[in-house]
């Protein structure tokens, strides 16, 4: 069952580029599967093969649990395979300047806090991580702040997602299922549900 997610502490991997689309996070040919198992092998597959220096190739970042990213992260295709592949690679929180909305929703459904920070703060964090890949960062979803040693920066997350994560209610399926009677009542008042008979 889902747990309460209030903080994520770990080392970080940085990818401070804008408009990283989900085809880049996981190219479409790796969506030929009927389960999400094993997707971690394909995260940023093409980018990693063409750039030996890609941060996800860097030995020092292999245990990273926090991803630092740019603006409009996760744009394009709605494939949940994208956050699934990141999660299965080891990412437990993402700090970016902004997100594409479907990707953000998918992250929340998986219990991955996707928080935002200013570009300036992200740039500083990337410098910290480059200088010391073992630096431990703490993303505090409850207090909406990120700590890096002695430094604390503000982060943000929409209240609905923050609430869902910190109360452990990010498994929306069980909540939605509980309201099935209300769903039926709603359906009854919608003209097309009765073939426009009413």
């Amino acid at each position: 069952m889902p747990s309460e997610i209030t903080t994520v502490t770990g080392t970080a991997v940085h990818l401070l580029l804008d408009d990283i689309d989900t085809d880049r996070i996981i190219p479409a040919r790796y969506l030929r599967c009927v389960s999400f198992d094993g997707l971690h092998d394909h995260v940023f597959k093409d980018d990693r093969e063409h750039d030996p220096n890609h941060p996800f190739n860097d030995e020092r970042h292999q245990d990273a649990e926090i991803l630092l990213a740019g603006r409009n992260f996760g744009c394009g295709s709605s494939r949940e395979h994208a956050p699934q592949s990141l999660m299965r690679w080891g990412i437990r929180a993402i700090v970016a300047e902004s997100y594409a909305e479907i990707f953000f929703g998918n992250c929340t459904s998986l219990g991955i806090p996707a928080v935002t920070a200013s570009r300036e703060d992200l740039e500083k964090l990337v410098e910290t991580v480059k200088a010391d890949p073992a630096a431990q960062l703490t993303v505090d979803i409850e207090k909406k702040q990120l700590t890096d040693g002695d430094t604390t920066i503000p982060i943000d997350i929409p209240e609905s997602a923050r609430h869902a994560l910190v109360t452990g209610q990010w498994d929306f399926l069980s909540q939605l299922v509980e309201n099935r009677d209300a769903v039926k009542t709603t359906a009854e008042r919608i003209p097309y549900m009765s073939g426009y008979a009413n």
Partner: protein
Amino acid sequence: MSDTRNLFNKVWDLHTVGTLPSGQTQLFIGLHLIHEVTSPQAFDMLRERGLKVMYPDRTIATVDHIVPTDNQARPFADGLAEEMMSAIEKNCREFGVTLLDLKDDRQGIVHAVGPEQGLTQPGVTVACGDSHTSTHGAFGTIAFGIGTSQVAHVLATQTLAMNRPQVKRVEVNGELAPGVFAKDVILYIIRRLGVKGGIGYAYEYAGSTFDAMTMEERMTVCNMSIEGGARCGYINPDETTVEYLRGRPFAPQGEAFEKAAEWWLSLASPSDAEYDDSVTFDAADIEPTVTWGINPGQSVGVSEEIPAVSSYPKEEQTGVQEALSFMELQAGQSMQGLKIDVAFIGSCTNGRISDLREAARIAEGNQVAPGVKALVVPGSQQILKQAEEEGLHKIFEAAGFEWRAAGCSMCLAMNPDKLQGREICASSSNRNFKGRQGSPTGRTLLMSPAMVAAAAVNGCVTDVREMLEPVGV
């Protein structure tokens, strides 16, 4: 007091089941479309929890992404594709969902099938595990692309947990010049508003340019809302919408149709509707458009040059440089004359009958340039049948285009249709992302189907207006 809610808010309110502890709305979904790529794990989630599909009649399945467009004999040569195909067959059988498979002449790209079968109707909330679900907004629906966990939510409860987006009215007025198509309009809007411009918004497309469009053109516009960052996009229903739906298999029939039509038209945003933001463009400023970069906002009018890097905001310049270097293009360069290797006409954006007709007009009597591989892939079996009845396939084949079976094909290359190496593809699809068309280093130029046909016969990017018959005197 008059109701000043725009269509989006009226439809949202009608479908609101309640407010969740997170503050999100639990929203009823009237039409759920599923396909083979994003549904297998969702059915497994239902199995794990012992849940059933709550309204099996409100979900329709088809197969499109992995479907080979040449040899469709089963089992498929690609074992993984075959496994996905078997999974959707088994899941639909087990959970009581109608599947329009390859043997069914209603099969096709999910966003072509919904409208042509009359499943997509004004005032319906639509969801599908595919970001181009925004296509259905052409009918005055609110239509969301969703992830696989959310597909499970809709299967089990017919609802989604959603935050209500704001609504931005995107107005375009005036007539489109010859050679300028719906695709050019949406590429222009994305270029002007940016690929992040729509974040947090639903786009309402309004104004005389959209009023004059056919439903197919409206679908092309709404299809690419997601490329502009919008959560969805829609156009208010009008007589064009009603007439399109009349007589379609899943549309109401007889008296019920007239009642439905009255309700559909009543949903349109009133002239005094309220919006969170608005922007206005002039159709006269839009010319045939081509992308030069690696996101759909990086485009130019075909008579223009690629803008200087310095003309972009500072924070975007790194991305612009990356795009130019990947594409091996330079600022100041014209796209006209750029050699292509592949021409692709198809996809949920531009694989409908009117797209094929426009492309055939350009192809007719011409030959695909030597060395260019050109594919025409109808969006659905119904479109394919219609095109063959009109003899379009003969025009394409005589001109040297390959005429294929319905599917997503080279739009995203989850099937055998792929770019090789550094090939450059003139494509009527929706995304020019790095690697999108199957080769990690392949390059995509997005444009209208007529522009793709023009590029195919000339072997390079061409202003389609030079190939049109003069109109009038």
